[in-house]
């Protein structure tokens, strides 16, 4: 009866592997250009716009987390907002109750989210992707309720949430708190993007994609599917959790109602629109998640969600590989 599920989807060729490596000077130039483009807004933008851009960077990181498990490993998660929330709360609780510095909370929130991701990925392991989507869907819906619960109110601040402060810029840097926050988000994200990029191009990354495209063949070739899948989930949850930590300090406030199901939906939409299974796509996804809801609200004040949903379905119909896929195809045409 599950014959339709067993037929693998049209295999996606691993284009990264086929492409010859760039010469060192080109790679260096691209990296320098990227750094320059990323740093200019720090001085050119007003503080609110800079805050928005900071959030876009953070969302890009969260989308990257989702992309690792859903895009590259084919396990559909509709609940990454939960990991984002847990990361945010780890940082918030440690900073406001334990007076920890922001940097010290990052490893803790990464570890907690990785553990949680492992636990969530485990039960749905033996089942089709749909069941995982279901489990994570219900996780995302349940999270605000759990965060509000009385038993942990002393730590989480209950419905009121917790207030925090942005990390102070070091005294030897002539930056204000907003600029420093942007830089912090940028550095942490860049580091994790680099790690994810390496992971995807490694043996494990290829194994993850093989499992997505044809699990039976992958298993026959000796890949430990259960272990790889749960680990991919843990890594993915960790990345999104760290994004949550950054988001908490950037907004300087956490409350249960900022982590509703809508967060998970936005991350999912961001991933699809940016480009499924694309590192670059995650960046577009982050920009989309932050700026398009405002845009949708300008088109139709009454029903921004209708526009948002229509954009999602439109992308799935017309550009299933997202914005990154469009760029890739344009680049291929130009190179030819």
């Amino acid at each position, binding site marked *: *009866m*599950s*014959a*339709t*599920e*067993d037929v693998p*989807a*049209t295999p996606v060729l691993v284009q990264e592997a086929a492409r010859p490596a760039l010469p060192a000077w080109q790679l260096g130039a691209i990296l320098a250009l990227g750094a320059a483009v990323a740093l200019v807004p720090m001085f050119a933008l007003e503080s609110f716009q800079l805050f928005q851009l900071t959030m876009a960077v953070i969302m890009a990181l969260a989308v990257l987390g989702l992309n690792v498990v*859903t895009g590259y490993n*084919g396990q*559909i998660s*509709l609940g990454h907002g939960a990991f984002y929330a847990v990361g945010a709360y780890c940082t918030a609780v440690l900073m406001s109750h334990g007076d920890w510095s922001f940097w010290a909370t990052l490893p803790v929130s990464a570890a907690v989210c990785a553990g949680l991701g492992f636990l969530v990925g*485990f*039960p*749905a392991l*033996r*089942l*089709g*992707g*749909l*069941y995982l*989507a*279901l*489990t994570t*869907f*219900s*996780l995302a*819906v*349940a999270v605000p*309720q*759990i965060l*509000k*619960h*009385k038993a942990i109110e002393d730590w989480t601040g209950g419905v009121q949430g917790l207030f925090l402060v942005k990390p102070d810029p070091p005294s030897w840097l002539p930056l204000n708190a907003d600029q420093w926050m942007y830089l912090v988000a940028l550095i942490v994200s860049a580091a994790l993007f680099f790690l994810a990029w390496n992971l995807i191009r490694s043996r494990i990354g290829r194994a993850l994609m093989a499992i997505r495209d044809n699990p*039976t063949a992958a298993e026959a070739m000796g890949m430990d599917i259960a272990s790889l899948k749960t680990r991919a989930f843990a890594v993915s949850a960790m990345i999104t959790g760290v994004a949550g930590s950054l988001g908490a300090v950037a907004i300087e406030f956490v409350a249960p109602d900022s982590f509703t*199901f809508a967060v998970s*939906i936005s991350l*999912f*939409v961001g991933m*699809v629109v940016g480009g*499924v299974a694309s590192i670059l796509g995650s960046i577009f996804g982050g920009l989309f998640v932050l700026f398009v809801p405002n845009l949708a609200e300008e088109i139709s004040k*009454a*029903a*921004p*969600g*209708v526009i*948002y*949903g*229509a954009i*999602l*379905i439109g992308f*799935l*119909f017309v550009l*299933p590989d997202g914005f990154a896929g469009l760029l890739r195809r344009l680049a291929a045409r130009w190179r030819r």
Partner: protein
Amino acid sequence: MEGLPHQIVAGIATGGIYASVALALVMIYQATHHVNFAQGEMATFSTFIALSLIQAGFPYWIAFVLTVVISFALGVAIERLLMRPVQNAPVLTHVGVFIGLLLIVGNATGWVFGYTTKVFPSPFESEGLLFGGLVSGHELGSTVVTLAVLLLVYLFFRHTPLGLAMRAAAYNPVSSRLVGIRVGWMLALGWGLAAAVGAVAGMMVAPVVFLDPTMMLGILLYAFAGALLGGIDNPMGAVIGGFAVGVLENLAGAYVVGTELKLTVALAIIIGVLVVKPSGLFGRVVLSRV
């Protein structure tokens, strides 16, 4: 009123709602192997249509029938317009379309009908409690309606040629097409039926939880839990699972965790079933073909 028997009976009444939504989910799952994440939003939209019809002066049961017919048509239209073009796409695309549908329908509901919470009338007199304070009129009435719907669906699938054709199309599309069944239309019909069943569930639950655009989110979660508990490929199992989840939820809410963690109970049931018995109580164990 506060006693255990009343909690169980009230659980059965809400369980009936979960059973209907679970049945709608299972019907779509059987026809297409997909779980419709927008099922709850579609049911809410239908319920708002019913409210508008009642406010326009239609008697309750006329409005009820009209709503079911309109929902059926909407379900068929959604399958034709949105699902058919991507029917051969990967699962991720389907989930994406469902999420888009959830956003569009959910938001359109608020846009068209407003975000304020509304009172939805119950057709069943609820003056006082029946059977020595055990059950309210609406609880009894909605359970009866739910059971009637379930019976109708059962009879339709078991004892009509069209029901047989639909089951055949879901079970083996290729062979069905060879014997002349129009498989595409069977899928559309399945969507229409599911939307109609969901609409009935929405109209039955709205007097209890009050009508607003996010009414069904929690209910959908419980319906998932019920469908999984009973076995997602078994309509009868989904119904029993739905009732069981209703009772479990009510008992847990009354005696164990309180009302604030009710959604977490659903999560716990879902994870519990997936860990202990992934095929559900009555589902078939699926072996993948190599």
